[in-house]
């Protein structure tokens, strides 16, 4: 595959006999994807990224950036932040970016432009230690963008931020997505992955338990909520409908599961034909949260056999 950004094969990290942080992970990320790595805390997200970025050694397996292997020079084409933003506290934003430009070997970095992009230009000469967490996170994003990288990696970018900070960071990530860059985003926030990502994997105890595109995961629902003025006749009509597999009466709404081939529109037409005036009908898209929890539940038994002593 020519547009492969990242490929991992049997990527494994064992910290000790008991702690297997990442277990034979296979990932394939291609150009232009916004790839979410989803998992509860301690599921191996940061360890995985650490291995891909050369700060954690591999126990087993291999990875390849841009189809070119794992040489450290390839990391110059990646902009990454792991966990918290790490900078020299006594240097200002501009000076910290200057240090970074020496590492990336960029002769004339556009530090002012980057700082304007993330809204830190006014504070560029203040030392890093005076910044709020949100500002530190934004400087980290500016730094990650410095080399105009092909790939950006964010690890829990909104962790610990207030709602306004979260909104700012999300907007920045959306802006970066619009620059046609590949993004890898590790998060335990489903909502974040749902809003931002195109593809995602779910990790549990270092093992990949699901992978696919976000839209596929969200479409797999067949629940429709309906309400009508004449509630009793609605209930009767629903019961007689061949496309309804099951229903649930919540008092003011009826939730029905429809059979393959039926849609909300078809159901509506069926009800209108029987003189039931529907005043509310909506096909529910399951949130990623429901999907995620059901995936975790399905795998709970398989991945964690009951402890026996």
């Amino acid at each position, binding site marked *: 595959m020519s547009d492969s950004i990242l490929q991992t094969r049997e990527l494994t990290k064992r910290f000790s006999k008991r702690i297997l942080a990442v277990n034979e992970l296979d990932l394939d990320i291609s150009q232009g994807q916004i790839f979410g790595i989803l998992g509860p805390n301690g599921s191996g997200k940061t360890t995985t990224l*650490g291995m891909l*970025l*050369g*700060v*954690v*050694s591999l126990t087993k397996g291999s990875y390849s950036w841009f189809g070119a292997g794992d040489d*450290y*020079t390839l*990391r*110059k084409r*990646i902009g*990454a932040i*792991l966990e*918290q933003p*790490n*900078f*020299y*506290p*006594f*240097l*200002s934003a501009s*000076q910290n970016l*200057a*240090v*970074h430009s*020496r*590492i*990336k*070997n960029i002769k004339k970095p556009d530090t002012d432009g980057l700082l304007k992009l993330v809204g830190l230009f006014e504070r560029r000469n203040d030392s890093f230690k005076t910044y709020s967490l949100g500002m530190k996170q934004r400087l980290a994003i500016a*730094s990650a963008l410095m080399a105009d990288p092909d790939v950006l990696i964010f690890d829990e970018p909104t962790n610990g931020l207030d709602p306004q900070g979260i909104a700012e960071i999300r907007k920045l990530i959306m802006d970066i997505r619009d620059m046609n860059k590949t993004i890898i985003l590790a998060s335990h926030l489903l909502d974040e992955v749902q809003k931002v990502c195109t593809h995602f994997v779910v990790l549990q105890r270092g093992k990949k338990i699901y992978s696919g595109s976000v839209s596929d995961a969200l479409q797999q629902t067949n629940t429709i909520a309906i309400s009508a003025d004449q509630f009793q006749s609605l209930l009767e009509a629903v019961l007689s409908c061949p496309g309804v597999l099951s229903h649930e009466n919540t008092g003011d709404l009826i939730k029905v599961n429809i059979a393959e081939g039926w849609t909300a529109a078809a159901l509506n037409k069926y009800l209108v034909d029987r003189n039931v005036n529907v005043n509310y009908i909506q096909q529910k898209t399951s949130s990623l949260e429901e999907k995620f929890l059901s995936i975790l539940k399905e795998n709970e038994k398989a991945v964690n056999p009951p402890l026996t002593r």
Partner: protein
Amino acid sequence: MNLRRTIELEYFKFRHYKPFLVILGLFVFCFLLSGLSIKGLLDWFLRQQEDDDVLKHFVESGLPLFDFVDLWQNLAWLATIFKWIPAFLIIISVTLEYSNKTIKQNIIDGLSKKEFLLSKLSLVVFISFVSAALLFLLGMILGLMYSPVKELSYIVQNLEFVPAYGLEVFAFLCMAMFAAFLFQRSGVTIIIFLLYTACIEPILTAILNYRYEWKVWYFPVEAINRIIRVPFQKYALSFVQDSILIGDVMVSLGWSTIFIFLSYWLLKKRDL
């Protein structure tokens, strides 16, 4: 690999770090000040002892401390006491990278572990060079002020003590750098390094040498201190090794290589 880039990187990191610059400035200031005040201190001390006939004789004849030829070894030996200050600078510069996790970010941003080590090593070389240059400057000042002979041939004789001093500082700083990579935290590193170099090893080697008649030239601190031997017994008319022995140089270079290699091994082995 780009050596210039690793040097530049270190320069960009520390040119605005005030504590670092203050310590470096104080080091240069104290180095020159204490050198320039030796003569005055000695004169004052000898004047206090006027009743002592032997010392009186010394005062009249004048100690040849600052005479060219003798001067380089005398000053180089006296200056060895200052090597702890640059050692602490190196320790701070390495442990700072760990406490701020900037070493991790450096690697993520695309530096190799080898390049990271090289950038720290460039700081070690730079400070060793500065130390040797300071010694040369001080020697020229004192010599031109107090030495009775000022011919070029005398000035350059025994000048090899200046690069030898640079080597001594270099080897010592390599050891400090290794300690910093080993312990990673500045407080712990400074205390253990100070205890080991100024207390544990000197006492241990003294006991092993005098009590058990061991050869102790291969201990690191001993080897580093051996490059420049104590010169002053010669004024009490006993024999003094007054040149640099190639063997001492080789042992110190050997230790430097070992410390650099061990630092690299630690960096390579550990996850960040």
